[in-house]
């Protein structure tokens, strides 16, 4: 039997343990794909969407219903006014149309303007009724549907989920794994051998980087097959950014694990680290939705520059050289937590 170098022996042992846990394989490799599929379907760009609207009961409601029955994209329903309000409140309808004084030419539109569907339904209904009664459009226009790959929600989502996978993988694969080894006194046992701390850390890190490759490849391949998500940027640049991201979150995992002595402690710390970033950093929606004053702070979090860089490379086809600030922040997150982690790390107990 050949004797391996310590780093490759640790890497190999970690890889073996990893592939022998089917549940980890599922979470790391297939869960992100499942999320892409579910979210991609839920938020697909729909054509010919129909909007439900309610007509409140009145002497003229029959004639209104008849007029609306020819409106494109409108599905009218007849209800008592009170019942319609309940339906509007619970989101079952988008709009209530009520004649003001028994006349079909004097209408109240009741809707919530902050709901995108409501506003669209109101405009569709109003346009249709106005035209029926003789309004003439003054300019000619035609609608051309834009749905090119790169601009859809699923395109936005893929780089976000890629980055999320790197975050979860680093924290679980390094942070949780180290605390587990500490609890089992395996870490202490290893420290009683000539294995050095750097061998251990490099081996853990190397195994993490190797797990990550299929994670990225599977996600990108499935997105391409199912949703035609394409890569506009340079592959090598993407690989470099992914590597930096993987190192960044492995190092944060190391910091989280530096002193924790129970799985509860490390799980709690990991949630403290990950939960804010799930919502703030733009995995599922752009952080531009948060007040502008918060943007400089959000951009300093470890996940934001990774997502921003991946989107710039994958969707916009930008060059890695345009990503200076992002790479700088990520490098900072690779170095500072590492130094702190080594300083406070519990090796022997």
């Amino acid at each position, binding site marked *: *039997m050949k004797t391996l170098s310590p780093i490759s*022996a640790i890497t190999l*042992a970690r890889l073996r343990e990893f592939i*022998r846990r089917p549940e980890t394989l599922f979470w790391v490799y297939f869960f992100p794909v499942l999320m892409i599929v579910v979210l991609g379907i839920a938020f697909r760009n729909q054509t010919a969407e129909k909007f439900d609207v309610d007509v409140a009961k009145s002497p003229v409601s029959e004639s209104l219903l008849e007029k609306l029955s020819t409106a494109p994209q409108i599905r009218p329903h007849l209800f008592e006014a009170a019942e319609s309000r309940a339906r509007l409140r619970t989101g079952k309808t988008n709009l209530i149309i009520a004649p003001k004084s028994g006349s079909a030419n004097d209408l109240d539109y009741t809707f919530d303007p902050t709901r995108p569907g409501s506003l669209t339904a109101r405009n569709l209904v109003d346009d249709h009724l106005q035209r029926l009664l003789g309004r003439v459009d003054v300019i000619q226009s035609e609608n051309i549907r834009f749905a090119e790959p790169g601009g859809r929600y699923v395109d936005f989502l893929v780089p976000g989920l890629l980055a999320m996978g790197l975050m979860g993988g680093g924290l679980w694969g390094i942070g949780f794994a180290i605390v587990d080894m500490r609890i089992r*006194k395996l870490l*202490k*046992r290893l*420290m*009683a*051998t000539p294995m050095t701390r750097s061998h251990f850390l490099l081996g853990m890190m190397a195994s993490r980087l190797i797990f990550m490759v299929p994670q990225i490849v599977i996600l990108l391949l499935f997105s391409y097959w199912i949703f035609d998500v394409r890569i506009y940027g340079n592959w090598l640049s993407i690989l470099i950014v992914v590597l930096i991201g993987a190192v960044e979150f492995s190092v944060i995992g190391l910091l989280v694990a530096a002193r924790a002595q129970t799985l509860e402690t490390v799980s709690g710390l990991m949630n403290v680290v990950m939960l804010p970033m799930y919502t703030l950093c733009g995995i599922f929606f752009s952080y531009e939705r948060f007040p502008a004053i918060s943007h400089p702070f959000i951009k300093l979090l470890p996940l934001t520059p990774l997502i921003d860089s991946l989107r710039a490379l994958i969707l916009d086809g930008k060059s890695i050289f345009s990503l200076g600030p992002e790479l700088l922040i990520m490098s900072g997150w690779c170095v500072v937590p590492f130094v702190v982690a080594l300083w406070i790390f519990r090796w022997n107990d």
Partner: protein
Amino acid sequence: MQPAIRVSNLVKTYRGKPPVEAVRGIDFEIQNGECYGVLGPNGAGKTTTIEILEGLLTASSGTAEIFGLKWGVHGAAIRQRIGVSLQETQLSERLTVGETLQLFRSFYKTGIDAQEAMRRVSLEEKANAWVKTLSGGQKQRLAVATALVGEPDLIFLDEPTTGLDPTSRRQIWEIVESLGREGKTILLTTHYMEEAERLCDRVAIFDQGRIIAEGAPADLIHSLGAEHIIEFSIDRDLNQFDDSLIRRLPTLERFEQLAGGFRITVGQPHIVLPELINNLAQQQIALASLTTRHASLEDVFVGLTGRHLTDQNQSRNSS
């Protein structure tokens, strides 16, 4: 030649409120090729001492040298020459026995291959079994094998048989004995006195952070002055019993009243026994039970502290 281990005035105090003085100034030396036993109840400071010697803890004061080398200066060199089996290490469950040993082998410059390590602890048949499928005894033998892969000169075994069934315990003993025949130096901690008597050339008895006796097991037992223990009980209320007829028995060294009877330590049981039975018969007292045995290290511990080793197990923490 330097001794394998030289410890002088070693002290370890754990910070806390109040501070715990786990080791309160101990000295001992272990010669090359010796099997040295560290005995004592839980909380006596055995594990703290062994972990200082393994380089896993730093002493509060005093020195501990391995082959004349000091931790903190020659740590890397010492680690290449020692093999360690800790209390309660759980090795990776989803690695096989062979893979685990290859991993540990990779850390040493020289050593034996995984196959040979498995042979020495009779685990060849389990080479491809995951660690989680092993029995307690097999896991412990694997733990010993991880201590052997670097072909160390000095092996530390911290309570290698605690919690094992008698068969597994005997298998570990055989491994330790074979290591002794190969000329390895072994430091082993245990709270089983019979284990120490069987395996160790010399033992140190620890109690409350100090060494209260040191020497070859036979010499320590001999130091009791009498090597035979007679335990008996009678069909009579112990409180109404006049024990002077026991106290005047020939070659008597110790006399203790136990919960259900008496224990006496004597030099010449073949003289004592007939006389004891005669004396009792004259008082028309019948024996309810009678056993005789050789004195053990347990009796040495009782003789030194007035306590039993096992009494301590529940009430004191392991450290």
